[in-house]
């Protein structure tokens, strides 16, 4: 009896061994560096002693601003993405032609991954000083976009971010619409509810976890973005990711401890978003059982 349970434990331990190589890789390139980062954020570079100075330094306007800018652009593009992505997703979901529907879903799959330099540059081509749409507006509407608007500014970056946020939301929300069973609508109707009452009492509450999941994922998606911002607004707009980038590249003389603190705070913000995203999708899965 005792021997058997020992054997079982041995077999169990052997099974865990198969998981070890992958775990080691994750430790080497993910966990250990991040733990060091966390530790580093509390260490004074000169004295090698414990310090909270790096965290205290976050009160400076430049850092507060970069966080505010990052949160603003992520929040704004996430909200725009959720609202329009949901509407577009519903329009696509209700299309009678399955082929057209699938084509639009595939398109969203591709375009949500278009980010970084090629995307940023494409927006310069259409909305830069001499961009196509800029020219078009001058010629046909006699409307000067510049200097009120600039693609190299906050509003320009919003346009570029929405480009990949919108299709991402479409991809998140279409399965949610599919998940709303026709029988729920029919049950509600036979119980005396009209269409509006159905959406208010059942449709929207059932969609809510997907909307929250979308909002948090889109927020994290924009918050962590670097390449698009680097190409478009490098020196014009202070964002957290850009600031951290400068510190690594050593382009700006900063205490590395400051960079680590910014990294830790970003990790917390992103981690929280992803955690909420996870909880929401778990709820979606439970409901659609």
């Amino acid at each position, binding site marked *: 009896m005792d021997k058997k349970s020992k054997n079982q434990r041995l077999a169990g331990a052997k099974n865990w061994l198969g998981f070890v190589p992958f775990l080691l890789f994750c430790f080497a*390139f993910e966990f250990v560096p991040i733990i*060091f980062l966390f530790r580093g954020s509390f260490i004074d570079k000169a004295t090698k002693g414990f310090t909270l100075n790096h965290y205290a330094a976050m009160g400076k306007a430049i850092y507060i601003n970069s966080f505010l800018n990052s949160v603003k652009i992520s929040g704004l593009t996430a909200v725009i993405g959720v609202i329009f992505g949901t509407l*577009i997703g519903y329009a696509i979901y209700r299309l009678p032609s399955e082929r057209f529907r699938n084509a639009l879903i595939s398109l969203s*799959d591709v375009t949500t991954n278009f980010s970084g330099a090629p995307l940023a540059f494409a927006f310069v081509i259409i909305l830069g000083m001499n961009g196509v749409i800029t020219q078009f507006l001058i010629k046909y509407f006699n409307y000067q976009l510049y200097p009120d608007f600039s693609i190299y500014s906050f509003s320009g970056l919003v346009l570029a971010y929405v480009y990949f946020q919108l299709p991402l939301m479409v991809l998140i929300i279409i399965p949610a619409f599919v998940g709303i069973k026709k029988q729920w609508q029919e049950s509600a109707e036979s119980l005396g509810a009209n269409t509006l009452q159905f959406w208010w009492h059942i449709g929207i509450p059932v969609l809510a976890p997907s909307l929250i999941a979308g909002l948090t994922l889109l927020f994290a998606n924009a918050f962590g973005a670097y390449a698009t911002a*680097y*190409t478009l607004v490098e020196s014009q707009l202070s964002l957290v*990711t850009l600031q*951290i980038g400068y510190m690594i590249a050593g382009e700006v003389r900063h205490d590395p401890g400051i960079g680590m603190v910014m*990294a830790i705070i*970003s990790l917390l913000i992103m981690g929280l978003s992803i955690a909420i995203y996870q909880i929401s999708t778990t709820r979606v899965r439970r409901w659609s059982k």
Partner: protein
Amino acid sequence: MGKTQIVKKKEKVRPGAWQIILIAGFLFYMFIPIISTYLFSVATRWDRTILPEGYTLEFYGKTFEASYFLSSLRNSIILSVSTIFVSLVLIVPTTYWVHVRLPQAKPILDMLMILPFGIPTVVLALALVQVYNPTPLGHSPVLLIGAVFIYSMPFMYRPISNALNAIDAQTLTEAGQSLGATTGQVLLKVIIPNIFAGIISGSLLVFATVFAEFTLTKLILGARFKTFPLLLVEYTRINGNIAAAFSVISFTIAWLVSILILWVGKKSQGASAEAVRSH
């Protein structure tokens, strides 16, 4: 009771105006930047007119003259292929093992695969640089491959995990073992052929992701290892037309990979549907 008689409206089959407007707007947003980039890359001059004044292919010729063009392409391919290799060696067996032998670790694996979404690439780069730069691994392509692997592993994991779920790997493994095969033999001869479409999709996704990777490459290796996206960013500040030609190359690769993924997905679906029908 029920005295009110409300005539039911006939159900609409054709898309409504609101639908057409939303979808047209979406298509416009998605396509205008891309089409403009394609046009810009073949335009002689396009800063005073709505459509280009003339067309030329000279910028594509110039891309080849651009210093670093071929070496950056080569570097990008080296990086993508090595990452795919590491992913295949690590993720396929691990995912299979967890599915079949260690199901209690499935939630842990799922969590590990979501974690990279919660780590901004700049933070990952900073963390790696801080720890490894004082070591021989610092500034080495190995460090970059490790970083890119972490960043791209969810893309390999999801198709493989889905494929393993779809074929009921547990039962297939038990069937294989009851016929005298070892776990390794089952993986190679039974499981991998059956999840091949998932492996291909995962590899293509990793390829697309890593080929377009900019942040980690720039911040970990910088000028020491110039990949295609780094060159592109550089040229957006030197020559717009050539940058557009680079963008077109980048977009085209993304389109091709997506079409391939769709094709592989359809092919494998068709094959399994056929298998069901022939029974």
